[in-house]
């Protein structure tokens, strides 16, 4: 957020590397990409990300872009969203997608899993009340099926309802008719996604060599 000079030096890279876990080469490459996207400015805006062509066909595009501007993902205990981000925030969000290192302890693995699932949770919980309500979940499923036309929209509601029922039954168990299940809390979210090994599935391969010149 404006704390970098136009020629970032090694020291700043090193602090970033320590904070996010990327290697120095990876940070350099990502910085190049950042400059490319922001047209050499200090900060990145939503519109800059919207210019990426490949992102056009992605059904959850807006949610992905929103995740970059969500203060909760900056690991600084903030809430709300911002209009523009600097390279540090960009890198912080990217660090959620790093793969676990080979020799890490069980605790570190668990911590990484929680961090990644927290990122996903924040993506769904748009009003930041700590739970994913039925409406928010419906919205998620609708977005996922948004490219399927009318057929998708109608079943989205049914699918979201079914999913919610499942979460409720797994997390809470038997409920009396007048009890109300508020929404999916983070703990419940962890429980239902136990089957997916998040720390190994939610990652992308960050290169050590710069190939971004080849892509749009």
């Amino acid at each position: 957020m404006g704390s970098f000079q136009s020629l970032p030096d090694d020291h700043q890279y090193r602090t970033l590397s320590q904070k996010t876990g990327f290697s120095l080469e990876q940070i350099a490459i990502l910085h190049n990409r950042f400059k490319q996207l922001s047209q050499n400015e200090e900060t990145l805006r939503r519109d800059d990300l919207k210019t990426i062509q490949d992102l056009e066909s992605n059904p959850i595009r807006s949610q992905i872009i929103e995740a970059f501007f969500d203060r909760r993902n900056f690991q600084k205990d903030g809430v709300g969203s911002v209009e523009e981000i600097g390279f540090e925030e960009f890198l912080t969000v990217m660090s959620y997608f790093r793969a676990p290192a080979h020799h890490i302890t069980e605790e570190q693995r668990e911590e990484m899993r929680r961090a990644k699932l927290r990122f996903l949770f924040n993506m769904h919980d748009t009003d930041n009340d700590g739970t994913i309500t039925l409406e928010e979940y419906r919205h998620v499923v609708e977005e996922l099926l948004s490219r399927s036309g009318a057929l998708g929209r109608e079943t989205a509601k049914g699918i979201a309802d079914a999913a919610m029922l499942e979460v409720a039954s797994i997390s809470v168990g038997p409920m009396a008719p007048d009890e109300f299940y508020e929404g999916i809390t983070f703990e419940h979210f962890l429980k239902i996604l136990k089957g997916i090994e998040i720390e190994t599935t939610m990652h992308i391969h960050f290169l050590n060599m710069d190939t971004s010149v080849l892509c749009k």
Partner: protein
Amino acid sequence: MELKMFLLVLGLLVGISSPGRAANHGKPPDTYDHELQNQGNYTRATPSKKPFPVLSFNFEHVKVPFEISLWVLLASLMKLGFHLIPRLSSIVPESCLLIVVGLLVGGLMKVVSEVPPVLDSNVFFLYLLPPIILDAGYFLPIRQFTENLGTILMFAVVGTLWNAFFVGGLLYGVCQLEGHKLVNVDLLSCLLFGSIISAVDPVAVLAVFEEIHINELLHILVFGESLLNDAVTVVLYHLFEEYSTVGTITVMDVFLGVVCFLVVSLGGIVVGAIYGILAAFTSRFTSHTRVIEPLFVFVYSYMAYLSAEVFHLSGIMALIACGAVMRPYVEANISHKSHTTIKYFLKMWSSVSDTLIFIFLGVSTVAGPHEWNWTFVVATVIFCLVARVLGVVGLTFVINKFRIVKLTPKDQFIIAYGGLRGAIAFSLVYLLSTEHFPKRNMFLTAIITVIFFTVFVQGMTIRPLVDLLAVKKKQETKRSINEEIHTQFLDHLLTGIEDICGHYGHHHWKDKLNRFNKKYVKKCLIAGERSREPQLIAFYHKMEMKQAIELVESGGGAKLPSALPSTVSMQNIQPKKPPQDRALPQLSKAREQEIRKILRTNLQRTRQRLRSYNRHTLIADPYEDGWNEILIKRKKMMELEKKISQMNNYLTVPAPPPDSPTIARARLASDPQAWGLKSVTESIPTIKVDLASPQSPESVNVVNEFGKKGSQPKGSQLKASEEEEGGLTMKIPSPPKQRKDKTADEDNDKEPQQRLMRCLSDPGPAAEEEDEDEPFLP
């Protein structure tokens, strides 16, 4: 008791088959003479009249099918028998038992001084192997396979090459050192032998791994390797066989060999893919001839195999490619019954093949010409084991640098230990001719020993070892809809992040492939509306269908399937609506017209959808059509329950299943408030969908169950429930009083057809419902 009877039957069978054969040898001359004589009699026209043969014996012309059937019967009875002996099947894997049986039968035949049949390589490769491979290929878990493809290829190609040269080379060394008996075994023969024996056998792997339920990663690694190493084996085998006569191999030959390998493997895959696409395309048009759908799957796959074999391409890879390519499209097109048929036929054939192969292996051991040589055989066994272990360890070291989920030493051990050899190696050796390979019998003996060793020793001990090492087992959990949603979500998320990062990783390409698939391929290969169905919705429908079928099969309604949370219902998660004002919303006429129109069109659409599943020769199946009906009924039930509970009724209701699209469409999209408290009862014609298909008894039960529950508390609600859940009949609410007395059953059975007809033909009781002002609720 059962066991004794079983053994008796078995003995009889074997007994029959022997005299059957003896009769063969004895009979032909007699019968021929007899027939000639008869003919001679007739032509000579001197009728020395014999009494008309009431009963005659002519075994010759049914000999071949008879024997085949007898063997298949024997194999199946064996399989049956093993499960009667409780403890045995848990200690010894089936393949071992079958080989032992084969040994016994072979021994028995030898005692009776019959020539036991040997496993003919032609029969093996053309008839016994394809069903097993097709079964494996059709049900291949694509996601795990592609995720681990790099690892699998490394093991299959590099591992097999390493094994072949290591074993072949060392054996040559041993032969040279040994002296007099073995010195004339040249290098090429040894290399050929090495290449044959180094290939992990899919049949044996499947047979053993199926019983130990190991985790999916290891299963796909070993199994994938056994499938993909076929190309390597084919190339090496032909290469060494061609040049063993000449005696030397030049660099040019090696280079051509490499090219040949690429051609063989890629060619096989291409051939398989072409046939797969043809099959998928054909299945698009089978909506009127559902009965022969499975036939297309089987025949196209078999053609793929045979076509690949014509050109000496890898038939196994063709078969795998064919099955894997056609499956997503074919499954979207075929009926549920055909799907079940395909599954069961494949499992049945592969099971029979598998059994026959192992039995024949046992019989051939007794039969085949043997030449025992201690040094050679023992050396072979030791070198095979050592080569496997070294190969796995070395390759894993390299592979782990590229994998995210590393392979632990435990995994490596299982992979090395699971490298079983089997009948393919045996058949390949059998194909060798004795002139070119004077030591072929010795090879045969050695291979049989290795096979026996791996199948018996490794096969039997792998299960306790898996338990001992606490290797992760297969998880039996069903895939939940939340996981499916999030898997899809993650796919899109990761693709998006890759795009933002600016490099084209494998998520990007996967996404591109998916989009290409959706845009072009699916439109060509999948019939009708399903071509546009996104994966999430397809999964959801499948889940619903499974639940509905479970419901029907569990006796209809009394016991809900376990997947369905029976303790949480829609009202628990629906946000509380603001308290209803008692002024019931009046519906305008226009709105009602609209509602009626929507419902009618949806009804027609639903009927058409179901009609398309009618088969000419089979009666409409209650399971196929009825489940849809049941789902719809249940949705209506759920709506009703919801409304009743909103009337301050503390009835605990079983949770309704989620809405199916049929219902979602049939429900009012316009304004849910229109279905206020009163509307349940009468002012809107309560048109429900009655599918004009034969009511299955289960469906009636469902209705009754809910009818009873819903009708418990209050008298007025009783009428509401009876009316409402009156089996989805199309009724015009004009005579509600009369209907009050009728029971649900009557509604179901009596007038569905007429009412349906009436709904479709007449424009609707526009005038009548105005009369309906009688307040239904007191």
